[in-house]
């Protein structure tokens, strides 16, 4: 049980006309929750599918639990758990039947009742899959990914499309996975999810890893720990002239201006003075800590939600 849970070197994949993965290197330690963060089209899912053996890479090396697909495919399959972006089950299969069936595919398996308890689906254990809510279906998908008591679990956007309450309950399941000593690799395009769940993150954009680290270290590395926001009633005006007058970067996003700063206390008096002089019609002022969103924006010039 030594060595990393997952290590990837120089992974590349080109689809017709699209460079999906352009040289990815990653190392995931055993027992950590590792997040691949990035907007749609950043190459997260393709990277994950190559690791899971669903897609073959054009180049690169992958070691999963010290095993390689070329030689030990069946052993990898029996030791990893996978939740795909959309797990499609038969409409009229029940969670109990699905867990029994998928469990029967593996040499080693966890009890169906235990898994139902883990994802809190006891009450829906005998309901048809099609009658479950989105959150319940997603929790079943997680239970299916755990059916073989895997050492390494891959979750592809586990909470996309769920309401806040369902997301929280799914986060609890992921934390329990970590508590049981499993390694979890997940993709997400939610900042709060990455901050709440992940021990370490790789920020991806355009098929490459832009930055790796803990959420706190990634934010600290920005050297601009705070952001002052001016909100407007309606669309924000062009900040160029104001930025020049203030001698401070001002970025416009929809209905607000963002002023990244290491020292908001020093900035604020100057800001109010300049705003009054220029008659800037702002409504409110907020000061907030920098988030992973700012890290992403700073590194790529793109918003995660684009």
């Amino acid at each position, binding site marked *: 049980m030594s060595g990393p849970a997952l290590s990837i070197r120089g992974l590349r994949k080109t689809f017709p006309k699209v460079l999906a993965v352009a040289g990815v290197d990653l190392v995931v330690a055993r027992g950590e929750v590792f997040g691949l963060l990035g907007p749609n089209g950043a190459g997260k899912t393709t990277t994950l599918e190559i690791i*899971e053996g*669903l897609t073959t890479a054009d180049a690169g090396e992958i070691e999963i639990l010290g095993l390689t697909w070329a030689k030990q495919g*069946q052993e990898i*399959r*029996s030791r990893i758990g996978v939740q795909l972006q*959309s797990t499609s089950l038969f409409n*009229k*299969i029940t969670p109990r*039947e699905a867990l029994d069936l998928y469990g*029967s595919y593996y040499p080693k398996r966890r009890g169906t009742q235990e898994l139902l308890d883990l994802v809190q689906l006891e009450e829906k254990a005998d309901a048809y899959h099609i009658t479950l809510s989105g959150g319940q279906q997603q929790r079943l998908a997680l239970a299916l990914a755990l059916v073989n008591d895997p050492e390494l679990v891959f979750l592809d956007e586990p909470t996309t499309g769920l309401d806040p309450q369902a997301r929280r309950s799914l986060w609890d399941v992921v934390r329990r996975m970590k508590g049981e000593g499993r390694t979890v690799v997940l993709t997400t395009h939610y900042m709060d999810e990455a901050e709440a769940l992940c021990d370490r993150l790789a920020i991806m954009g355009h098929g490459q890893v832009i930055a790796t680290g803990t959420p706190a270290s990634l934010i600290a590395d920005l050297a601009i720990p705070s952001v002052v926001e001016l909100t407007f009633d309606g669309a924000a005006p062009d900040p160029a002239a104001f930025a020049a007058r203030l001698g401070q970067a001002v970025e416009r996003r929809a209905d607000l201006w963002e002023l990244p700063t290491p020292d908001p206390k020093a900035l604020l008096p100057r800001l109010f003075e300049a705003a009054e002089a220029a008659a800037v019609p702002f409504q409110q002022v907020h000061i907030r800590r920098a988030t992973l969103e700012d890290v992403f924006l700073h590194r790529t010039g793109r918003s995660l939600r684009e």
Partner: protein
Amino acid sequence: MMLWRQFAMEWRLYSRDRVAMFWTFAFPVILLMGFGTIFRDGGGPKLSVVRVQALAPEPRDAALDQALADLQLKVITLPKAEAEARWTRGETAAQLEPAGNGYRLRLNSYLMAQAGATAGVVNQAWLMAQARLSGAPEPQRIPIQVESPGHKRSANYASFLLPGLLGLNLVSMGLFSVGMVNVSYREKGKFRRLAVTPLPKWIFLLGQVLHRLTVTVIQAAILLLVGFLAFGIQNQGSTLNLLLLMALGTGCFMAFGFALSSFAETSESYSAISNLVFLPLMMLSGVYFTLDAAPAWVQHTVAVMPLAPFLRALRAVFNDGAGLAGHGLGLGIVAAWGLAAFALAVKRFRWA
């Protein structure tokens, strides 16, 4: 053990799908009962002729009426105006009206099958009537016997239809239960979810194929039982030959489904492609009606398609108790289609 679980789960999920159950098990029985009962006498609709009343009846009119009655043709006698109205409504196949010193027959061009047969009977009656009027010896009629090609007396339509339905069921099983299901599994990512488990894919596919096989066996058994109970239809040939034929057909059309499914990305496009194959096969292969009336090029074309030769052999065995020997070419065509489809399926089948 894994295979058994897979097979058992296919059955359990299938039994919950009431719509599929209806189309698979109930619908063919409904078709057999419905058409079998409607066309119970085997002769299609009863023949009838509309007779326009003569203004001043002559002896020949009475003689012709008598002869028509002797030949058991249904005669509807109407005044001229009413007969014309009926003709205009399109309900009359053949109308017999006085013309000069004799008669004239008008035939409805939309109902030529009935009208042609009626015209033959009317002419025969008129020959009889003329002979009787002139005191000549009564003309003798040649007796008719209805028989199937293998000399078995299976005159009712249900016995023609039943093998057709058996064959059609195999086609729809292959194209829809196998082909459609595989396209939707691929489209919805069920195959991908399976691919990340250690379950060998062949076990999944074999479980599915075995399930469809048992469905087909049960479906055929139900049809045969209903055919026997309702219409007294029995397999006239050897059970072994029937089983061999069904096995060949199942293999051929299942391979068809697998091959065809590889050409579609989505369920929608598959349903277009499969209907493009299914509908002509169903309409033109002699499932419901014989094809004697079709143009020669149509007959030649369907003879090299898989369903028509299959049904020909199946009817020969089932209805006429024939062996398979005389159907080597036809069965060769079916087998060739099956092998070609299988090769294509193996080459093109995709999991994702």
